Structure formats: structure tokens, C-alpha cells
């Protein structure tokens, strides 16, 4: 099902839109369109955003990302409708709304993209949360299909050799299963090449984000939230790399010409946690009108932070490190240090923390992070209580009271 597009007014405070938005839209529309024809033509895998997808690609799996679909539903304000479908079937309103959207789709078939491909395999990694595993277990039960888990021990301290060898062994154990499901033999050379492409795309994504160090920043974090889709959904495919190469060239050009994403960048902000997808447009305008630009986020950074570990000469071991050292699988000391580094490198004046009801590993610890960052860096901070896609868990009034206070502090 589709919703009638409404014309929404862009704020006059915003700079010119990115021309790469068009190529992104085409790329993702093609991805969703092709997915409809993948079913029956090639094996289809539904994959969590933090899973080491490179291992699936040599088997020609068409990969589909329910979290990306959830974000899309959220941005199109379909979250409550799809969540309610899952709730009708007994899924509690306190559960992750990405999961409820996905289960709501399972029960109702509703989606803004026409139709989703039925999976042959579910592939999850618990490096982003345990929730994805509970969610995929439910899907595995409904679809009666296999679930493969990449179990990534949490880094309470430092990563150990025991952890790495456990993850390497798991990747090796997956190969016969994937051969069986896809009926394609593992091609090691191709796998190594895919690891190389994934690395390059992620590093290019990192360069894209780094352009926001410029003053004025050539894009906002709201642009980055949208342009995140290929590195999540098409990682390991040349199309993702090509997209980021084009985007990077455009951003570099903007920096050279001094074109900012907002017209009067007076304050530079950092965002913590996943986007509030249904408030993207409103927040983009709200902050731009006050001369405030989000120039960095822990969320967008997650797909480039550890990817430097990827090494095609040691693909299994390097994947173990790259995927288990991600922000949400790492202790909070690591997160504090990362945020402090980003705040300094991107010359951040204030921090907006989204306490997301859906995402426990991202949200538990945020109150202390806020306290420590305020104490150590002396910058204004604010916490907004909301949800990633379920707008029923968001109070505009409460958020605005907090944001007004934040704006006053920031503007001194």
C-alpha cells in the first residue's frame, strides 16, 4: 500500500538540496523494486544492520534489511499503523518498534514499497542488540526458515583472542549451511573481493561524514541519516561504493565553494542514537531556523568506525574485529571516548540525545553519558524521550519544553 505524497515546505534557512539525493532515491528504489523479483530467482536473506553480510554475497543472496524498511515506514509515518498490527497479535507496545513494524508487515502485508520478498534465510548478529535475535526467532517460527546467528561477545573490557577465534569459527561453520541453503559453493576469491569492496565503501562513507568538519558543513546529519541506506543495505556491492564516491565529490565541491547545508550555521551539534524518523523534516527545519546544524552523530559513524579492521588478506579474523567492536557491542567508556573525540573533531557546541524507547543498548547509559560530557566538555546537552518510529511514544510538548531550554542555554 502507498500513501499519497504530501507537499511539505522546506525551511528558507536550509541551503540547496544535494543533487546526490536523486541518485540515492533511484538506487534505493531499484533495490526495493528488484527485491520483488528476487524471490524464486535467487536465495533471499533478511539481514540485521550489523550482520557481516560479506559472507552471504558469494552465495548470491539477495539481501533485504528489515531495519531499513522500518526506518522507511517511520519516515512515512506508518509506524503506529504497522506497530498496531503486531500489537493486535499480542506483541507488547514496549517492544522495539522496528520489530513491531516488521511483524506488523508479516501479519498485514502492509508496506509503503509495494511488496517485500519472502526470505529463505534469516541472518542476524547480536552486535547491535539481543532484540534482533528475539525478533528474528519469531520470524523464523512464522516463516519456518533457518536462522543463522553471528554471536559477538560483548566487549566489557578489551576484545580477547578467545572472542576472536570464537567468531572466526562461527563464520567458518556458516559456510556449509550457506552452501546448503543457496545451493552454491563458497567462492573464497570472490568473498575476499567483496570484503575489499565493503571496506572501501565504508571508508568512503567515513570520508563523506568527515566533510562535515568544514565550516559551514556541506550537509546536515538529517541528510546523512538518509544517505546511510546504501552502506547498511548494499554493503559489499559496487553500487554502494559508487554512490558514496559521487556524494563525496559533491560534498567536496560544496566545501570548496563554501556552500553550507544551512544558510547561517551559527551552532554545530551532535546527535546521539538512531533518528526519530517521523520527525526528520520537522527537526531539520526547527534547528536550521535557529542557525543550528547537526554535524556528527554516533549513529551514522557506526558504519565506518571499525571498518578499517576489514582486511581482505585475513577476511574472517578482520570481520570478527570489525563487527564486534562496533559502538553498541562495546562498553560505555569506549562510547564516552568516541563522543568526546567526535565533539572535538567536529567542533561541536551542543549535544542532543535521543532516548529511544525501542533501543535499550543505545539508550541505557545515556543519562550518565550526558552528565559526564557536560562535566568534562562544558557543553549544553539535552535528552529527548521519544521512539525511532512509533510516534505514540513521543510528546511534542515535552520535547519542545526541553529543546527551548536547550536553545536558551546554547544561545547564552
Amino acid at each position, binding site marked *: 500500500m502507498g500513501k499519497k505524497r504530501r507537499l511539505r515546505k522546506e525551511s528558507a534557512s536550509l541551503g540547496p538540496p544535494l543533487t546526490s539525493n536523486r541518485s540515492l532515491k533511484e538506487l534505493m528504489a531499484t533495490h526495493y523494486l528488484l527485491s520483488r523479483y528476487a524471490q524464486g530467482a535467487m536465495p533471499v536473506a533478511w539481514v540485521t544492520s550489523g550482520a557481516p553480510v560479506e559472507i552471504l554475497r558469494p552465495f548470491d543472496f539477495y539481501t533485504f534489511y528489515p531495519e531499513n524498511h522500518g526506518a522507511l515506514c517511520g519516515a512515512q509515518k506508518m509506524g503506529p499503523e504497522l506497530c498496531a498490527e503486531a500489537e493486535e497479535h499480542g506483541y507488547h507496545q514496549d*517492544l522495539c518498534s522496528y520489530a513491531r513494524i516488521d511483524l506488523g508487515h508479516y501479519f498485514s502485508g502492509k508496506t509503503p514499497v509495494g511488496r517485500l520478498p519472502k526470505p529463505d534465510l534469516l541472518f542476524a548478529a547480536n552486535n547491535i*542488540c539481543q532484540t534482533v535475535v*528475539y525478533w528474528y526467532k519469531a520470524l523464523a*517460527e512464522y516463516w519456518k526458515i533457518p536462522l543463522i546467528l553471528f554471536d559477538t561477545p560483548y566487549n566489557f573490557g578489551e576484545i580477547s583472542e578467545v572472542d576472536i577465534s570464537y567468531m572466526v569459527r562461527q563464520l567458518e561453520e556458516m559456510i556449509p549451511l550457506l552452501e546448503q541453503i543457496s545451493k552454491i559453493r563458497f567462492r573464497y576469491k570472490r568473498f575476499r573481493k567483496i570484503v575489499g569492496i565493503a571496506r572501501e565503501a565504508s571508508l568512503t562513507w567515513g570520508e563523506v561524514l568527515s566533510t562535515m568538519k568544514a565550516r559551514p558543513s556541506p550537509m546536515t546529519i538529517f541528510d546523512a541519516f538518509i544517505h546511510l541506506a546504501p552502506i547498511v543495505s548494499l554493503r559489499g556491492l559496487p553500487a554502494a561504493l559508487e554512490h558514496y564516491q559521487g556524494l563525496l565529490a559533491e560534498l567536496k565541491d560544496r566545501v570548496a565553494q563554501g556552500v553550507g547545508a544551512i544558510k547561517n550555521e551559527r551552532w554545530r551539534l551532535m546527535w546521539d542514537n538512531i533518528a526519530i524518523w517521523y520527525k526528520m523534516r520537522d527537526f531539520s527545519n526547527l534547528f536550521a531556523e535557529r542557525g543550528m546544524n547537526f554535524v556528527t552523530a554516533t549513529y551514522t559513524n557506526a558504519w565506518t568506525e571499525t571498518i578499517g579492521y576489514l582486511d581482505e588478506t585475513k577476511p574472517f579474523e578482520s570481520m570478527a574485529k570489525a563487527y564486534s567492536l562496533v559502538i553498541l557491542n562495546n562498553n560505555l567508556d569506549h562510547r564516552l571516548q568516541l563522543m568526546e573525540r567526535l565533539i572535538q573533531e567536529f567542533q561541536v557546541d551542543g549535544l542532543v540525545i535521543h532516548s529511544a524507547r525501542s533501543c535499550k543498548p543505545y539508550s541505557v547509559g545515556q543519562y550518565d553519558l550526558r552528565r559526564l560530557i557536560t562535566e568534562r566538555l562544558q557543553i549544553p546537552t539535552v535528552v529527548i524521550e521519544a521512539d525511532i518510529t512509533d510516534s505514540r511514544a513521543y510528546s511534542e510538548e515535552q520535547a519542545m519544553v526541553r529543546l527551548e531550554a536547550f536553545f536558551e542555554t546554547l544561545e547564552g
Partner: protein
Amino acid sequence: MTEFHSPSRREYLLKQREVYGRHIFGVFPAQYPRELLWTMNILPVEIWDPPLDLSYASAHLQSYICSIVRLGLEFIVKGKGDILDGFLFPHTCDSIQNLSSIVNNYLKPGKPCYFFYHPKWPYRESSHRFYIEQLRDLAAQLGDQFGALDYSRFKRYVEKGEKVTSVMRDLYSLRASGGLSASNGEFYRTIRQAEFLHPDDLIPLLEKFLEGSQGTPRSETSVILSGVLPNPSEILALLDELKIRVGDDDLLACGRRYLVPPNQTQDPFESLAERYFYMPPCTTRNSPIKERLEHLINKVEGSNAQGVIFWIVKFCEPELFDMPHLIEGLKKKGLPTLVIDVEPNQELTGQLTTRIEAFGEMIR
């Protein structure tokens, strides 16, 4: 063997330190190798539901985080853990995972914090090997503070752990077959002593309870409890009052951890690995929903129960995700279910009482 006098938890722990030189560790839920801790002369004291009002924890945790995590943090922030020599955080769920880091990295309680990661289903050869390696790693870390692991002592404590499990199995089996006269409240008050008693005290306590509780049950109507832990205890008292006996349970704090099949493995590391991989299906280990449903149905059949009560701690994602499937599967078998979504330590509301009473009427 020490004599058990039913003292308060604090008095008991102080005595353990003074008389036996034992180190006291606060351990968060749920799966951890307590035999290893006993061997290192560490007495684990589990932190599930300390009877505290929540106040300070709200400065650290959002209102949508479960009470077990919030109460655990409240316990630490209020300084109630002064008696403890360290903390152990098993990897139970996302919230406990991050709680471990809040405590270790931010609150820095001045006591050593340890972490134990147990592999998640689906289990493969690598899972077994990793579990053994995790045990060895924890032993080495504890060894740095408390002295090296003594292998023969470890074997003895694994045997004591086996004995605890064996008496627990007998108790559960007697209850399921209708041969236990103890009330629901008495049963859970007794077995929850396993959360802090040393095995030398726990084993005789359980044996005494087993011996003294054999007899005709107080009711023919029985239910299965599934969920996390039997708190608030007023619900057990209400079930007793309604003459509904708990025939068996699938509670994380109780049956799921104790009802492990006997194992004869000689090597203590291998023995603990066996115990872990043969525990009843559990959300904290990512067990498949199908296995959980079969397990519940077996419990219903094995205890002649008339219904299942899902006793859920608010905001507990692992349990809430499995519930729709389990309820549907039980319904297909014609088994009534009741879901109660409560906070530990909360008072029994009139509405909750009415729902439980109505369920009792329905299954009679």
C-alpha cells in the same frame, strides 16, 4: 557442615565472611557458573529484587527499563552493597549488559567487576569450546584476586552443585506429581534461598524441606508459572488462598536454572558446560520458541496443570517477544493462559486480584 539457623541475609553473609573467610560477590541475573565461585571461596549473592524504593536509579536509567535492572542499580547507588567484595554480571539481556558498563565504567563502586558471556543459540561446536574458554578465563581473572583455581576443590564443588540440582529435581518432581504438601509461598521462599546460601547450608535445607513437605497437596487445581521470578509474593499467597497450587514452573530465577539433567562428566569444566547446554530452554540463551513451547506443554502434562500463568516483569523484552507464540501454541492445545505484567515488590492491586480470581474460576 554449617548449621542453618534461618538468619537474615545480611547476618548470614557476615557470618560467612567472619567464620569461613568467604568473599561475597553480588551477582546479577541469571546464568553463571556458581560452582566456580564457590571453589574460589566466593559466595555469590544474587541481586534480583532487593526490597528498595526506586529513587536514585532514575537519575541513571529511563523509566522504560525493567525493575530488575533499576532495583539492582538502586542497590549499588544506595550503598547497600557495602558488604560485597565484587560484582559479577552475566550477559543476560541488553539492559544488564549496559548496566554492567554503567557500574564498571561510570559509577566505579570501588570493587572489582567481572563479566561472563555465555554463547547464544544456535549451538555449534564453537559454542561449546567458547563456553569452556569463558569458564577458564573467568577462573583466571578471579585467580588474580583470590588465588589460583584448585582443580580437585573445583571437582568437589561441581559435585555439590550436582547435589543441589538433584534435590531441586526431587522437589520439583514431587510437587508435579502432587506429593508435596507445602504451600506455594513456602515452596518459593525455600528454593529462593539458593540465591545466596552456600551449598553446605543449602543442601541440608532443601533436603529437610523435601522430607518435611511430603504429603497431600492443598488443592487439585494446578497451574504452571512462566516468566522471570515469583515476586510479588502476594500473588503466591493469593493462589494459595484460591486453592490453586503451582504444579511446576518455567521461571528464569527458579526451574529454568535448576532443572538440569544429571551428568556424570568427570572434568569439572566439561561438567559445567554440559549443565549450561542442557538447561531447559530459556530466552536468555536465545532458545528457539518451538523448544520453549514443547517444554511448557511437557510441564503442563507432567503436572496435570489446567492452565499457564505468564508472570512477566514489565519491560522484559526477552520474555515479551516469545509470549504471542507460546500463548497461541497453548491455546491450540486448549490450555487457558493468563498474562500478568507486574513490577517486583509492587502491591497487589484489586484489578490484578480480580483477574487472577477469574482465571482460577475458569480453570476449575
